[in-house]
Structure formats: C-alpha cells, structure tokens
C-alpha cells in the first residue's frame, strides 16, 4: 500500500498555515483586535445568549465609533456553544489558536467552566457572565486568566434572604432548584446565607433541567409549609415550576434567582409570574446614570428593553476593553485586567484584585418584581 505523502501532509500544513495567518492578522496593528464571544444562542438558553450578543454588538460599534483601542478597531467573533460544554471547550481552544486576545463566554455556568478549563494553560483572559464564582475561585486558588461579570451567588443569596426576612417577614424558606451546577451551587450558598441570617431552610427540592412536571416537588414543599419559596434556576424551566406552584395551590411568595429575569420566563409563566420577586443589578425603574445610558442605547438600537443578561454582556465586553486600554502588550492582558483601576459598569463597579476576580459588592443588587408581564425594580 502506498501513502500519498503530498496528500497526507497537505491538510495539516493548510491548517497550520491558516492558524498562523489568523494569529498574524490578529496581532498586526492594522487589523481589528479580535475578541471571541462563545455564547449560547440556540436552545432554551438562547434568549439569554442573544441578549448578551446584542450588547456586545452594540459595544463594538460604540468603541469603534470612539476610535477603538489606540486607533485600532475591535471585533467580536460570535459562536454558538449550543449550551454544550464540549463544544464550548473546542471553540475556546480554536479561538486561542486563532489569535483571539480574549474570550467572552459563559451564558451558562457549565460552558463557562469548560472554557476556563480549555484556556487554563494559556494566558488568554476570559470573562464569563454567570453568578457562580467557583469558575475563577478554584480549589487551587484564583484562576489568573478568569474574570466574572455578574454579581456572584453569595451577593444574590444575601439579597434574597434579606428580602425574604425583612420585606416578606419570612422565618422559613423552601428551595426549588435546578439540578445543574448553577442551581445546586446557588441552593448551597443560599442555605449558608439563610443560616447566617437565622432563617430556616425547611425543604430543598431539585428538578431536572428539562423537567415539565413538578407535582412531587410541590407536594413536598406544601408539606414543609415554608413562608417563602426560592426558585434557583434559569431559562424556561423555572417558569414551568412557577406555574406548577401556583396551579397546585401554593400561594406563598416566590423569589427567583437572577436566572429567571428574562422575558422568556414571563411569557411561559403567564399570570403565575405576577408578584414573583427576583434580584437584579440592572435597575429597570430607577436606573443610575450608567444604567440609564445603557438602557437608552439598547432601546434605540434594538427597539426593546434590555434584560439583565444584556447588561452582563455589556460589562463583560467593557472589562476586556478596559483591560486592553490598560495593557502594555497582548500577552499581559490578564495581568493588566487584574491590576487595572476599578471599572464602572452597568452592574456596578468592578474592583479586580489578586484575590477577587469579580469585585462587585452587595449594594449593586435590587429587588425586582413581575407585574402584568413586565419586570420592575423597587
């Protein structure tokens, strides 16, 4: 059997040449600075990822309209990770090999973890947009290249328990959470925070990400008689859970994690969502000046009100832009981001340090509530 040497080496050579060319073009001063955006823009999480993509598109226009980074334009390359960690990891590896200076990722926690692992050996910074701090706060210490653009679970849990205790006068909480990393982690942190504030967790129920019936969980919650139910999940499943809670006759107040703060949740939950509380850093009703500017730009560009996920996308992109402005060389971008001056974002001010790659404080969060299919903030 003969081996066609020319053919056998042609493909790897072509791939290597293409990667080298891509790296070269990304590094040259004349071309745009490429930032990979690996988001979930299909499947049940699509409304979240699409909002993030919209905000990043808006940011690209905004930065380039104001002269780019030292005269060089930026460009986000959007790719759909299909909410699959393996695909997210492959896209991240390709983005690093292709010369992307940074990666915005993590519409969902599982994909953020995958991208963080895939880029661990490189110095390419990644900014992810879910509240799970464990992606950068690892058992081995702070991941040098991983940053978080979202108030972390601890802040959210603190705000939720405080709201349950002071606003709803609750002494006990029943938890209904997604079985995934986001939901399980959130429920664990919520339990710790409840204990700290002297509120009792009387039941902890979980559901599968694709669950459509919640009768057993709601029956357990009914038996536990909590003053408040906290639903910790994202996308449309918490909306079905909300419907089930109400249709099965439970009338206690509901508080959702920030993962429910989307129009998709309101559309599916329908009238059952009326009166549901959540927490958000984006104050819809009384925004601060930075949020007001963001809300107006987004509404002018896309003719709809942004949700919290759009704000995460905007902040994630802005953190990289701030890092690029502070950085002396592309190779030192992660170090520059860690050391840069506090960056004011839509979700608050990010104070990065060697021990904190999130830097937001509890004061950035507001209580939101749903009424007639719209989210408001207090």
């Amino acid at each position: 059997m003969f081996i066609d040497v020319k053919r056998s080496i042609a493909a790897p050579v072509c791939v290597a040449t293409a990667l080298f060319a891509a790296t070269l073009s990304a590094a040259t001063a004349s071309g745009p600075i490429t930032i990979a955006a690996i988001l979930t823009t299909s499947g049940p999480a699509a409304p979240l990822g699409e909002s993030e993509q919209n905000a990043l598109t808006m940011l690209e226009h905004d930065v380039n309209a104001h002269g780019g980074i030292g005269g060089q334009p930026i460009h986000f390359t959007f790719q759909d990770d299909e909410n699959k960690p393996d695909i997210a990891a492959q896209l991240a590896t390709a983005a690093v090999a292709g010369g992307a200076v940074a990666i915005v990722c993590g519409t969902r926690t599982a994909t953020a973890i995958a991208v963080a692992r895939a880029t661990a050996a490189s110095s390419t910074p990644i900014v992810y947009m879910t509240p799970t701090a464990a992606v950068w706060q690892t058992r081995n210490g702070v991941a040098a290249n991983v940053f978080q653009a979202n108030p972390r679970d601890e802040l959210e849990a603190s705000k939720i328990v405080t709201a349950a205790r002071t606003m709803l006068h609750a002494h006990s909480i029943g938890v209904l959470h997604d079985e995934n990393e986001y939901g399980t982690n959130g429920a664990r942190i919520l339990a710790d925070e409840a204990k700290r504030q002297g509120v009792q967790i009387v039941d902890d129920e979980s559901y599968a990400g694709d669950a459509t019936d919640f009768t057993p969980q709601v029956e357990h919650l009914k038996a536990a008689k909590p003053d408040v139910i906290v639903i910790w999940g994202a996308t449309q499943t918490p909306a079905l859970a909300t419907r089930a809670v109400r249709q099965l006759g439970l009338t206690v107040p509901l508080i959702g994690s920030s993962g429910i703060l989307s129009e998709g949740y309101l559309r599916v939950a329908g009238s059952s969502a009326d009166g549901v509380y959540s927490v958000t850093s984006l104050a819809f009703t009384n925004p601060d000046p930075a949020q007001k500017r963001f809300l107006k730009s987004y509404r002018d560009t896309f003719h709809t009100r942004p949700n919290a996920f759009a704000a995460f996308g905007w902040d994630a992109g802005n953190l990289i832009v701030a890092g690029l402005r502070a950085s002396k060389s592309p190779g030192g971008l992660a170090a520059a981001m860690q050391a840069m001056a506090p960056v004011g974002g839509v979700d608050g001010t990010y104070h990065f340090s060697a021990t904190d790659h999130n830097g937001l404080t509890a004061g950035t969060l507001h209580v939101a509530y749903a009424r007639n299919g719209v989210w408001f903030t207090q």
Partner: protein
Amino acid sequence: MLQLIVAGLTVGSTYALVALGIHIVLRATRVINFAQGEFVILGGLLAFTVVNQLHQNVWVGLLAATVGGFLIGLIYERIVLRPAARISELTVTIATIGTVSVLLYGHAMLWGSLPEPLPAFLPGDSYHLGGVSIQRQSIAILVLLALALAALYAFFERTTFGKAIRAAANDPLGARLVGIDVDRARAISVAISIALAAFAGTIIGPLTLVGGAAGTAITIKGFVGAIVGGLESPVACALGGLLVGVAQKLIEGQFSYGVADPAVYTLLLVMLLLRPRGLLGARAVTRD
C-alpha cells in the same frame, strides 16, 4: 398520594398514546418506530404554528396537528418505511432511528430550539377537591385520551376498513388473497400512529411547552409503557403507558426525581426478563 396519581395519569397520557402508536406500527411493519417521540414534538409544533402564526384557537390547532400528523405519516411510510422494508426489517429499524435525527434537527431549523408555550384547552383555575388540586388541562388531557381511544376502538373493531387493516397486519398473505390492499393498509396504520403522536404532542403542550429535544425520552417512556402493558394489545399498551406515568410520579414523590427514571428503566428490564408479554399480554409478542 392522590395528587401524584393525578400528575402521573396526566404525564402517562402521552406515554399511553406513544405506546399505542408503537403498537400500531409494530403490528403493521414488524418493527419499533423509534421516531415516535419526535412525531409527538412535531405535532405540538404544528399546533403551535396554527395557533400563533395563523391565529386560530388551540382546538383548531389540535385538529390541524392530528390531520397534519396523519398526512405526514402517509408520506413517512411511502418514502422511508416502504422502501426500507424492501431491503429488510433491520433496515426499517435503522431508518426510524435516522428519522429521529432528521426530525430533531429539522424541528430546530424550522421552529428554533426554544420550547414554546401553547394555550390551555380549558383555561381557568385548578379545581381543589379534598386537598387535591386538579388542573383543568389535566382533565382535558384525560378526556381527550379517552375519546382518542374510543375512536380508535370503534375504527378498528366496528368498521370494515379497520378490520381489513387488522387482517392485513395479522396475516398479510391471507389478506391479499381476499383482496385487501396490504400496502395501503400498512400506510394507513402508520398514518394513524403518527396522527396519534401529533395528537399527544398537542394535548400535553399546554403543560409542558412544545418543541425542544425531549422526543427520545418520550419514545423510551412510551416503549416502557408498551412493554409493561403488553405489546400485542392496544388496550394493554395504553394502560401500560398510564401505569408508567403514575409509577414515575409516585417514585418521584417518595424518593426524588433522580430515582424515578432509573427505576422506570429497571422496570423495563425486569418485565422483559420475567414477563415479556407484559402485565396484560396473553399472546406471543411476535407474529407467526
């Protein structure tokens, strides 16, 4: 307990209709249609289109989805199952597995992969009877299931054409000898099976959303229902589907949702090993 049984019967209605569809195709073609659950998803999406794009009410959506499912079933039989059957039964089985992927990705391309809500058949608050909350939609689902089963029974037992289809399934050669068009009978059988799937996808839609990637899980649960009840009998298949739904919810209620699926699949293995004809099956599973 009663609350969980109501939830189980509601969920089990879909499994019952899928099990029945599997039974009908098995009788007609001697293979399991692994795409049955994907046709459930397709039915829900057809109804969603009629309701949301054509602004019709959900009852019209149900009718359109069922008729659409029937027509799609005819096409499916003609361009997929019949040519594959000319090669071998294994080829037909593989073709149904291939259809799963085609429909799964086809749904996402045409409708997107975001599950969508469907309006309730009976809008309004739940009924509360003795501490048990019964959603109006659950009542609608069970009534529609009963009507579908009654209509199928009447068709197969009381009409000449229905009897001809049964004869073609039981003894194709004998049926041909008495002038029955066996190919046509098989096509109608498959079409009825797909119409049932589309019907199931629509009636459950207001509770579960339509679309998404749950087709394979629905097929497996329906298949477990058919095995538990008895593959050879339509009534046994339907009862088996309901039983699986109730068992699933009772196990979830007693333990946790994470235990229910493994328990249901273990039940499948136990049934296959100890009682392959099912709880209500009396005759041999395969035809002679």
